[in-house]
């Protein structure tokens, strides 16, 4: 009897948090389905559901272009970040060399520095490099990240050394060992970093905002923020549709790959 009471409480708790988490999405979805003739807040459920707002977002509000820009940025950032981080993490996990600790500490330190401290110099630098309004300019902070290096290093440290030793005896060099033996073993971590890089790049706002002056280079986040400058009347329906369009790809990638999504903090939290 007592057990069932606890079970019921547990389910109530779980369902309460489901409402809190999903609620905003549901309201946004219902808002986005309201037709042009419908009042914005007169009723919660759309009387005559239509996908008009989604078509308007794509055709008139240029979200088709913003989508392409965002996809390109992500397609550059994700593979490069995985490659650079998995390379850099290897000597930090497996080799002894002069300066290793300095490198480790420097990388940790950059993680703790708020972006807002150096956004002005970065804006200046990227402009001087001719990367304003470019795809590379958008992703300079998402490639070779300190976070990624640590995530992957943590994963390398769990692999037994014996595997590499036997490969070295067979005459393989460090790059071959890394690429053929080590990398395949940490596939879940690589995918996890991929998901993180995807979501960071996909949702990044402040840096793309200041580095993008040409609206042909807008990403979804900037386009959406721009659209929300007039936050009233029927524009709210359009903002809702555009918000969901911006979220769905990110959500879909996560759901598709979530079985690989490993507890990234494992080991990092050991007391």
């Amino acid at each position: 009897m007592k057990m069932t009471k606890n079970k019921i409480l547990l389910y109530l708790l779980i369902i309460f948090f489901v409402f809190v988490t999903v609620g905003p999405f549901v309201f946004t979805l219902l808002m986005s389905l309201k037709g042009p003739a419908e009042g914005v807040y007169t009723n919660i459920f759309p009387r005559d559901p239509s996908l008009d707002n989604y078509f308007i977002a794509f055709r008139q509000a240029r979200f088709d272009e913003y989508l392409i820009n965002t996809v390109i940025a992500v397609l550059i950032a994700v593979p490069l970040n995985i490659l650079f981080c998995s390379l850099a993490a290897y000597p930090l996990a497996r080799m002894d060399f002069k300066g290793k600790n300095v490198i480790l500490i420097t990388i940790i330190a950059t993680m703790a520095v708020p972006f807002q401290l150096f956004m002005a110099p970065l804006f200046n630098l990227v402009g001087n490099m001719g990367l304003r309004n470019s795809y590379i300019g958008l992703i300079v902070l998402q490639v070779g990240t300190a976070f990624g290096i640590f995530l992957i290093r943590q994963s390398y440290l769990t692999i037994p050394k014996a595997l590499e030793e036997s490969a070295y005896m067979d005459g393989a060099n460090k790059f071959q060992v890394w690429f053929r033996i080590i990398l395949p073993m940490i596939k879940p971590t690589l995918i996890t970093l991929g998901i993180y890089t995807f979501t960071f790049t996909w949702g990044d706002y402040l840096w793309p905002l200041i580095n993008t002056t040409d609206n042909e280079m807008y990403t979804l986040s900037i386009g959406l923020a721009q659209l929300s400058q007039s936050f009233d009347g029927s524009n709210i329906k359009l903002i809702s549709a555009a918000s969901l369009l911006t979220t769905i790809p990110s959500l879909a990638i996560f759901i598709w790959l979530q079985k690989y999504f490993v507890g990234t903090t494992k080991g990092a939290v050991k007391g």
Partner: protein
Amino acid sequence: MRLTLNKQSNVKVKKRKESSVLTPWLFLLPALLMISVFYIYPILQAFMWSVQDYKIIAGEGAFVGLDNFRYIFQDSLFWRALTNSLLFLVVVLPLNVFLPIIVASAVNQKVKGIGLFRVIYYSPVVTPMVVAALMWRMLYVESGFVGNLVHFLGLYDRPTNLLMQTSTALFAVTVITVWKGLGYYMMIYLAGLQSISDEVYEAASIDGASPIQKFFKITVPMLAPSITLVSIMTIINGLKVFEEIALTTGGGPAGATTTLVIYIFDKFRNLEVSTASAAGIVLLVLAATGSVIQLKLNSGKEKDLKG
């Protein structure tokens, strides 16, 4: 084994040994290049600019000592921003530390379909921050769900937008931050919870402990390392909060949600980059101090726990 191999006067092996001094650096090169150019160099430059009167268009500045710091410390808006940033942390820190523990404990139970709930709780984390801010802004308007809810609950005489009230705006913004981060911190706690063995809970059950007692006497103390991590992340991330303010209140009403980051952004937009850099250094010092204090506090606690 490798040592003996290298000792053989085999030319091929010798060659590999010579190149091995460079090998780690070859692996590090691409990432180090990116970090040096796009993080370290601009960070050092920000320190330079903070003691100069740097003009970004002219591309030059003269040394002015601590003038920029003197300027911000005399600016009442800066103090307002600093206070708001700290107030924001004071509200977010306990919520970010404890709500995700409750959620993580709930989804750590052996209940059917729990994997689905984990995915659901994580969905705000992968939602772009701009979207989160706008969705909540829609809920907060007078005719929106929260706008009406506060009236329904009798907190206000009429439907009210909490984002537009000086007294509640900052609090309303924290809700968005907590909502967005809940799933992320839940995952951190889940990893921590998995290291607590079932036997501890079983023993407590035999002694007649209630679920609430087990939560406070076992779960929370055993999660101390995760709590440290979440606290530090909350301090560092909470100080950087931008979208949920910029896209809802824009720092208003009447500066009620102008945090340090909003202050810095406004200075940057006016091309007062040296002032922005000085304020940025204050932000960095806050983040570093908060993290160090948190680490110190918790290392003490953990020692107590280990006895």
